[in-house]
C-alpha cells in the first residue's frame, strides 16, 4: 500500500514553522561565528511564516498535516488551530524583540568565535523550534520529544553564565523538568495501552471516562504542572529564571513555561474532553489561586529586581489555570466558555510580552547600575526614562489596568467567573491584582524617586536595546487596544464545549 498522500491543502506553512528554526539550529554549529547573523536573518523570516500560518488558519480553519504522508494512528500529524497559531505568532514576536536586544550582547569580536555568542544563538534557535513543535504537534509521544527538546535548550540557557548559583539552579530545573516529562510519558503509555493511539484527534473520539484514563490524565497533568512551575511545584523557577542572562530570562519566563501550560489545555480540552470532571477543574484552579497569592506575596518580599520579576511569573502563571473551570473544563458547554477561553489565552499572550519586557528592562537596570538591588536603584528612572516607561507599561498589563492586554484578559476572566457563579475565583483575582500593584509599585517607586544629583548609568545602555524593551511592552498594551482580531482567530478549531456564544 503506497503511503497516503497528504490532504491537498495550501502551502505547508505549518511544516516550515518548525523546519526553519530547527534547520537554523543545525546550521549554526558549523557556521560558528556567523550563527548570530543566521539567527538575525531567520527570526524575521520566521515571523513572516508564523503570520502566514495564522492567515491560513484564519481563512481556511484548522490546518492539519500528515507527516511523510502517513496518517495517524500510524503516522504523526501536525495541527494548527487558532490557539496554536496565536502562540506561534507570539513566540516569533517575542523572539524578534529578544533578538534585537541580544544582538549586541551576544556578539563575538570580528573574526572570532566565542562560547556565549555561538551557543546563545544556537540554543535560541533550538528553543524556538521546540516551542513551535510543541504548539503544532498533535501526537502525545511526539509532544514528549518536543518537550525534551525544549528542556535541553532551556536548561543550558539558564546556566549560560556558568556561575555556581546558576549551575545549581539549572540542575534543579533539569530535575523538575525530567521528572515532569517522565510522568507525562507514563500517562501517555497508559493511554496507548488503553486506546492504541496517541493522536490527539483520535483519542478524543476513543477515550472515555474510565479509571485508566483518569490515572493517565492525572500523571500527565502532574508532569506538565512541574514543567509549568505551578504552585507548589514552582521552587525551581525563580532562581533559574533570575540567574540567566536577561535575554535568556525573557525567553524562559515569557515562552518556555507557556509550552507546558499549552499542553495542559490540549490534554484537557482537545484529547480528553469527556474525561475531565468538574472537581478536577476546581482543583487545578485552586492550585492556580495558590500560585497567585503565594507568588505575589513572595514577589513583594524580594530585594533583587530580577527575582521580583521571576516570582511575579509564578503568580501570573496562576491566572492561566483559573481559566480551566471557567472555560468549561469538566462540565457541560456554557455560554460563557468562549469568553473565559479568550481571556485565558489573551492572558498567556499579554503576559509573554509584558514579562519579556520586564526581564529585559531589569537586565538593563542591572547593566546600568551594576547590581539589581531594588532599593539602590533610586533615580534610575531619570537616567533611563525609556526603559522605565517600558517597565511601567508592562507592569500595567500585569496589574490588569486599562488600556492593556492584561486588562482585557483579566476582565474576561472576572466576568465569566461572575457569570458562572464561581465568584470565589473573582475574589482571588481581586486580591492578586492588589498584590501585583504592590510589587510593581515597589519596583517602580525607587526608579521614579527624585535624587539630589542626577544618576548616570555606570555603563552606557545602547539605544536599540531600549527600543526592543519598549517595543515588547507596547505590544502587551496594544493587545488591549485592538483585541478583536485575535478573539475570532482563537475560536478556530475550538471543540464544541467552548464554541457556543461569545462571552
Amino acid at each position: 500500500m503506497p503511503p497516503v498522500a497528504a490532504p491537498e491543502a495550501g502551502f505547508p506553512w505549518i511544516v516550515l514553522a518548525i523546519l526553519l528554526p530547527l534547520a537554523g539550529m543545525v546550521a549554526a554549529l558549523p557556521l560558528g561565528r556567523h550563527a548570530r547573523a543566521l539567527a538575525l536573518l531567520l527570526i524575521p523570516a520566521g515571523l513572516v511564516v508564523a503570520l502566514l500560518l495564522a492567515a491560513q488558519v484564519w481563512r481556511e480553519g484548522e490546518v492539519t498535516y500528515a507527516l511523510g504522508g502517513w496518517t495517524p494512528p500510524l503516522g504523526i500529524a501536525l495541527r494548527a488551530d487558532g490557539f496554536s497559531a496565536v502562540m506561534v505568532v507570539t513566540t516569533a514576536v517575542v523572539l524578534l524583540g529578544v533578538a534585537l536586544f541580544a544582538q549586541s550582547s551576544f556578539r563575538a569580536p570580528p573574526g572570532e568565535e566565542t562560547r556565549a555568542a555561538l551557543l546563545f544563538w544556537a540554543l535560541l534557535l533550538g528553543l524556538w523550534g521546540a516551542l513551535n513543535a510543541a504548539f503544532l504537534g498533535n501526537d502525545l509521544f511526539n509532544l514528549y520529544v518536543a518537550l525534551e527538546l525544549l528542556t535541553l535548550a532551556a536548561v543550558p540557557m539558564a546556566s549560560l553564565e556558568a556561575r555556581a548559583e546558576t549551575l545549581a539552579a539549572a540542575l534543579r530545573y533539569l530535575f523538575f523538568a525530567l521528572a515532569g516529562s517522565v510522568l507525562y510519558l507514563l500517562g501517555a503509555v497508559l493511554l496507548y495501552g488503553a486506546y492504541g493511539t496517541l493522536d490527539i484527534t483520535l483519542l478524543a473520539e476513543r477515550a472515555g471516562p474510565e479509571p485508566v484514563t483518569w490515572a493517565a490524565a492525572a500523571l500527565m497533568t502532574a508532569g506538565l504542572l512541574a514543567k509549568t512551575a505551578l504552585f507548589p511545584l514552582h521552587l525551581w523557577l525563580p532562581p533559574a529564571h533570575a540567574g540567566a542572562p536577561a535575554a535568556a530570562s525573557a525567553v524562559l519566563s515569557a515562552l518556555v513555561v507557556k509550552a507546558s501550560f499549552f499542553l495542559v489545555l490540549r490534554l484537557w480540552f482537545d484529547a480528553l474532553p469527556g474525561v475531565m470532571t468538574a472537581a478536577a477543574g476546581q482543583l487545578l484552579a485552586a492550585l492556580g489561586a495558590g500560585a497567585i497569592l503565594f507568588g505575589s506575596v513572595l514577589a513583594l518580599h524580594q530585594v533583587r529586581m530580577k527575582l521580583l520579576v521571576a516570582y511575579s511569573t509564578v503568580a501570573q502563571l496562576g491566572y492561566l489555570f483559573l481559566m480551566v473551570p471557567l472555560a468549561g473544563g469538566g462540565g457541560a458547554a456554557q455560554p460563557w466558555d468562549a469568553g473565559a477561553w479568550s481571556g485565558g489565552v489573551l492572558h498567556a499572550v499579554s503576559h509573554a510580552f509584558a514579562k519579556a519586557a520586564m526581564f529585559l528592562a531589569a537586565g538593563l537596570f542591572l547593566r546600568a547600575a551594576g547590581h539589581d538591588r531594588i532599593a539602590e536603584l533610586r533615580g534610575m528612572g531619570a537616567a533611563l526614562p525609556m526603559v522605565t516607561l517600558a517597565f511601567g507599561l508592562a507592569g500595567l498589563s500585569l496589574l490588569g489596568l486599562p488600556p492593556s492586554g492584561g486588562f482585557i484578559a483579566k476582565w474576561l476572566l472576572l466576568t465569566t467567573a461572575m457569570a458562572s457563579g464561581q465568584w470565589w475565583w473573582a475574589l482571588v483575582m481581586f486580591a492578586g491584582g492588589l498584590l501585583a500593584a504592590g510589587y510593581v509599585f515597589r519596583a517602580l517607586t525607587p526608579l521614579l524617586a527624585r535624587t539630589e544629583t542626577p544618576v548616570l548609568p555606570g555603563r552606557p545602555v545602547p539605544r536599540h536595546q531600549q527600543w526592543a524593551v519598549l517595543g515588547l511592552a507596547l505590544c502587551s498594551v496594544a493587545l488591549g487596544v485592538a483585541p478583536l482580531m485575535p478573539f475570532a482567530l482563537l475560536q478556530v478549531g475550538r471543540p464544541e464545549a467552548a464554541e457556543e456564544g461569545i462571552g
Partner: protein
Amino acid sequence: MTALWLLDLCLVAVILAVALSAVAARDLFAATVFFVAYGLLIALAWVRLDAVDVALAEAAIGAGLTGVLLLGVTARVHMEARTPGPGRGMRLAIGAGCAAVSVALAAAVLSLPVPAPSLVPAVEAAIPATGLGNPVTAVLLAFRGYDTLLETLVLLLALLGVWSLAPDRLWGGRPGLRHRARPEGTLAWLGRLLPPIGLLVGVYVFWIGSDQPGGAFQAGTILAAVWLLAIMAGLSDAPPVRSLALRLVLVAGPVVFLGIGTAGLFVAGAFLGYPPAAAKTLIVTVEAALTLSIAATLALLVAGAPERAP
C-alpha cells in the same frame, strides 16, 4: 512454558532486587555498579518481551553509555551529599506514597482492555511501501520519522548544553583529559585490537538494521564505544570543539535527514515522505548519515566539556 515462566520470575526478582540496591546503596560507586548490572538485566527482559531492537539499545545505551557516564563522573566527584535527606518519618511517608503510585499503576496495567488495541495491522499494511523488513526501523525512519528527527536534535542540543559549561578561555579546545596508557600495556593492546572488530560489528549492526534487529542508534553507540576506547587507551584524542570537520560530522545526520525530508515535499507530496520506489535507498542513506553523527555525538557527550585550551 513453565520453565520459561520460572525464568521470568527469577529475572524479575533479580531486577527488582538490583534496582532497590541501586537506590538504597550507601555509597555512590556501589549504586552505580548496581545500576550497570540493572541495565544488563533489563536488556534480558527486553528479549523476553520480544523486543530485540530495544534490548540492543538498552544494553548499549542504557547500561553501557549511561554506566560509563556515571562511573566517569563518580571518579571525579568524590564529595558526599551534605544536606541531610528527609527524616525517617518523612521517608516512610514518601515510601508509602511511591508504593501507592506503584499499586495504582499495577491496577491500571491489570485493567487494560482485552484484546489489546495495537498498530500491528497498520504497520504490516504499510511496511511494503518502505522496502524494509524490520518494522521497528520502518517506524523509526518512516512512519514516525519526525520523532527520530527531533530525537537526533535532542542529542545535538545536549552536546551544545554540555559544551556550554566550558570556561570562556577554554572554548574551542579539546574535551576531557588527555588519556595516556603505557604503549606496551594491556589497555593500549586492547585499544589496538578491538577497534577493527568493533568497527566491523558497528557497520554490521547498522547494515542489518533494515531487515533485522539493529539500526542507526545501536550501531552509532557501538562506534562511539570503539572511539572512546581508543581515546582511553591513549591511541586517539578527542578533537577540539572548534574543528570544522568535527562539526560537519556532528550535523551530517540531521542535515541529510532534513534534506531528504524536504525533498519528500516535492517527490512524495509530504515532508519526510519517500517515493515508494526509492524508499529503501533513501532510508539507508539517512541511517548511514545518522549512524555517523550519533557515534560522534555520543562519544563527545561522554568526553564532556572542553577542558584544554585550544
